[in-house]
């Protein structure tokens, strides 16, 4: 039975990947940060399953900022595959906590690779690094592929770029099977509520159910390449099954605006909107009632906005046989319906 070790197991990607690996027959080990209140909601359904938890799924306390702890976990688990998904992954927050972001996203990756080298696992283990389209930042060409030069525009992007290069470095210097997946935005009902997609679908459901009045957003014209997270975690696994390590762009190859995302999300909950005005005065108005449902707040503008992030997944298709199947419209609908159900449940609970 193959053993996988996952950092960031409680996150969106970690939870989907865990489910998929368990399904493939893996023994899965996760590293979770010690905290006074556990945030394991995305894997609670696995932890509460006696046939899985502590028989095929194990959790270890740990932290990417603690090298000796990483060494111990590596030695105890002896994994065949490592998925390094843990990160301070919020771009705007990284402007507020840049040092912490660097500590976890940059040095954390280095510590992990160095621990692999030091524990003698360099020839045995395969390492997946969660890289990100934020590396491209102010894009140097459209669409972006594995050969596009990077130009990060946030402390998060800069820290992740260090992680990317240190992976390449340890691969070339020490022969470690270490690969980068350069993932463009990938979303799901498990996305954190501070991310723009989830914020939109959550607000759509809650406005529909009368729990909120209006959704405030930043730059509505910002464009992203959004995919469906479970398809992206499947690709992570495929990357580690390759005989040779490498770096892969993982994207849909389609770009949509925040505005379009809003239109589909609100339509999915029965609140069709149309946009009027420009810049900070732009508003999303309900076509039926004329109510303002969406407004712009400069508070959500990033200090340096990233434009035209569009991935070219040709290499992933050619080498890995990977192709995303869930369309943009499907993705928004999946998320909007899930959040609408949550909102309905909240209303029902309040009613009792």
């Amino acid at each position, binding site marked *: 039975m193959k053993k996988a070790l996952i950092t960031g197991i409680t996150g969106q990607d970690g939870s989907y990947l865990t489910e998929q690996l368990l399904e493939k027959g893996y023994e899965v080990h996760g590293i979770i940060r010690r905290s006074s209140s556990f945030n394991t909601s995305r894997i609670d359904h696995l932890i509460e399953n006696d046939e899985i938890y502590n028989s095929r799924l194990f959790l270890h306390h740990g932290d990417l900022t603690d*090298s000796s702890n990483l060494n111990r976990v590596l030695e105890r688990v002896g994994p065949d595959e490592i998925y390094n998904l843990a990160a301070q992954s919020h771009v705007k927050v990284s402007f507020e906590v840049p040092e912490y972001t*660097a500590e976890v996203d940059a040095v954390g990756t280095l510590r992990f690779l160095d621990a692999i080298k030091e524990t003698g696992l360099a020839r045995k283990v395969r390492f997946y690094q969660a890289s990100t389209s934020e590396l491209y930042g102010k894009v140097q060409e459209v669409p972006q592929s594995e050969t596009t030069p*990077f130009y*990060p*525009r*946030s*402390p998060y992007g800069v820290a992740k770029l*260090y992680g990317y*290069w240190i992976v390449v470095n340890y691969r070339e210097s020490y022969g470690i099977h270490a690969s980068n997946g350069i993932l463009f935005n990938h979303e799901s009902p498990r996305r954190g509520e501070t991310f723009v997609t989830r914020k939109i679908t959550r607000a759509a459901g809650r406005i529909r159910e009368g729990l909120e009045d209006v959704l405030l957003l930043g730059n509505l014209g910002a464009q992203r390449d959004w995919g469906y997270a479970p398809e992206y975690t499947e690709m992570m696994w495929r990357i580690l099954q390759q005989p040779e390590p490498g770096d892969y762009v993982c994207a849909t190859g389609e770009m949509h605006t925040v505005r379009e995302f809003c239109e589909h999300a609100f339509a999915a909950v029965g609140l069709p909107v149309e946009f009027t005005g420009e810049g900070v005065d732009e508003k999303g108005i309900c076509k039926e009632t004329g109510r303002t449902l969406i407004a712009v707040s400069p508070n959500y503008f990033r*200090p340096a906005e990233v434009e035209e992030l569009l991935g070219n997944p040709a290499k992933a298709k050619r080498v890995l046989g990977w192709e995303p199947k869930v369309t943009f419209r499907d993705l928004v609908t999946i998320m909007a319906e899930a959040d609408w159900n949550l909102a309905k449940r909240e209303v029902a609970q309040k009613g009792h």
Partner: protein
Amino acid sequence: MSDVQARRVLISGITGQDGSYLAEALVAKGCEVHGLVRRLSHEDGSRLRHLDGLMRERRIVLHAADLSDRGAIRRIFESVSPAEFYHLAGQSHVGLSFEIPESTFTEVAGSTLALLEICRDLPEPPRFYHAGSSEIFGNPAEVPQNEDSAYRPTSPYGCAKAFAVNLCRVYREAYGLFVSSGIAYNHESVRRGENFVTRKIVMSAVRAARGDDQVLELGNLNARRDWGYAPEFVDGIQRILQHHEAGEFVLATGALTSLREFVAGAFRAVGIDIEFRGEGSEEIGLDGATGKLLLRVNPRYFRPLDPLNLVGDASKASRELGWRPTVRGIDLAAKLVSDELAEGPPERH
């Protein structure tokens, strides 16, 4: 310095090669120079030896604080309130970074981040110079490299420097701070530590000329570098912060010289014609006149990855700053030997 207020500047890494040359140059221009130095429980003096003259004449003010001590650094910035800050500190040995990758990150990248954060919070942020490095290009996609070339670092040092150069740009673009990085190629002087290859070669040539029995051990003799003269690069550094626009600037000579050529040049400068025999890790260097063994290759000095074709195109610095280095390659080897001899007899080992 009559009625005009002296320009106040702060330098990190002031005890190093570039820092000490820079301090001298700025003092000569009438600046009030402050330096950050690490506090040591035992001060052996040698660390400050390049600053001896300036300290005797009380031309500089040193502040003791470790860069990892954010509170102390912040207080120094607040009390000095510099108009310019030159961030030159950091572990600068590429080979060593493979052994100590994490502290290399902390010193090179983490400290730059902390300093940018401190400056961002100041009511009047100083102009900020960051000492970048050609190592960010590592295995370059194009030859020569300019400010727009893609970064492809091949060492933990290069990765950390790429982090720092990128972050400086992010702070400039996101917050409008005046932050510039000099992307400097190798620049050498007699103030280099002897663990750096040029100084090691020069010292070996000087000792050989004196008749000392010693064999110089080096790594890959085919490694080629764009080597310049540190005092000229320090002039470039000053020009960068006086420019009206912040940005990245490549500082380089544009000439590639192999380690083998550099060795030959240094020994020729002391009157020894060195002959190379053998290949790869078997290669040796003999005194052409006497046949005495002077050099052997030791694979211990091979790097896991050696950058190829790191050579800079400094036309932006030439065009915008009027900066034109004159000493390069084999001329540099001869220049360093004559500087070394002018400094007096080297200490024995």
